[in-house]
């Protein structure tokens, strides 16, 4: 029994590390930005933390929706969109790279 549990835990943890966090953002053209999150195995990013940083400070914090999306008001100036699925699973996208 214990052996089975150990095997299950090993499989679960190894699959976690196999995933790559992915995010893609686009400018809606109406003053808002939409970011979509996901993982390389196709699993949902629903509930994953998301924030917008400006000058290394979070100016917007949220979680990915059921559709693995977040929409926020486009900040003035330079900013970063951050998909934060935990250590080693963060994606940063510069605002200047987000286009329509």
């Amino acid at each position, binding site marked *: 029994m214990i052996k089975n549990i150990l095997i299950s835990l090993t499989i679960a943890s190894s699959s976690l590390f196999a995933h790559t966090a*992915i995010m*893609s953002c686009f400018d809606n053209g109406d003053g808002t930005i939409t970011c*979509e999150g996901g993982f*390389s195995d*196709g699993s949902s990013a629903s509930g994953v933390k998301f924030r917008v940083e400006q000058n290394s400070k979070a100016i917007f914090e949220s979680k990915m929706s059921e559709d693995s999306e977040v929409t926020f008001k486009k900040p003035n100036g330079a900013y970063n969109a951050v998909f934060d699925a935990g250590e080693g699973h963060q994606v940063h996208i510069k605002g200047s790279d987000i286009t329509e």
Partner: protein
Amino acid sequence: MIVIIIINYNLKGKKMKKIILSTVAATTILTTSAFAHFQMLYTPNTALVKGQTIEQKHIFTHPFADEHTMDMAGVEEFYVINKEKKTDLKPTLKSITFQGHHNSGKAYESTYKARKMGDHVFVMKPTPYFEANEGAYIQQITKSIINVAGAPTNWDAELGLKAEIVPLTKPYAIWEHGSFTGIVKSNGKVVPNAEIEVEYLNRDVDMKNNKMGSSRVEAPQDAFVTMTIKANKDGEFTFSIPKAGFWGFCALGAGSDTEYKGKELSQDAVIWVEAKPMK
């Protein structure tokens, strides 16, 4: 002495059986230069780093030899599916004349904003094309899959098409010298032992001027121009991809429709895959 030779061969998407009477003394070497027709849904990059507007060219041609560009007879359906959302793209099609190496033909172009992350599965069902040489129609139901940002969503979806190749390998994420595996299906059921033609897109497509560029490789013999492989009893096949670029797979006569306007119809399933160079 009379010898009867029975030869099975493919003539432009149609399996034919020919009986040849010959004498032993006459050592006739038979060659056919009937290369495979392929409906193309072409855009230069199927693995996009981020969302963007893509241009596609829809050409009915022979991708390796480019010895004849057919006039497309029209389009019955053209749509894209992203995360189970289907969008009709038929209104986006514009008629163009596409210049092949030997002639020009009627084709189409389209633009699409692939903005959402994940897989964008394009399906084109052209109006059957009358192949006068065979007195029969050809309809190639064609799939092409473009991915945005690397997140997999619906690339492996089975769409229940009348003729369909369901990929088991992401068609946009193949390294050069990798392989592609698919299953030939018709209305959701496997097509056992399906005959599949494979061709390499041997020319650059000039997207701006709607014409083919110069050829890249030469085939040592006709069997390398259109490579014919067979699916197994479960409709499954695998092909090792020797060179980066676009490869077309066409399952001949896999579809359930066999007649159009009172004539024979070969309803084929086509899928395009792209292999990237390791550099």
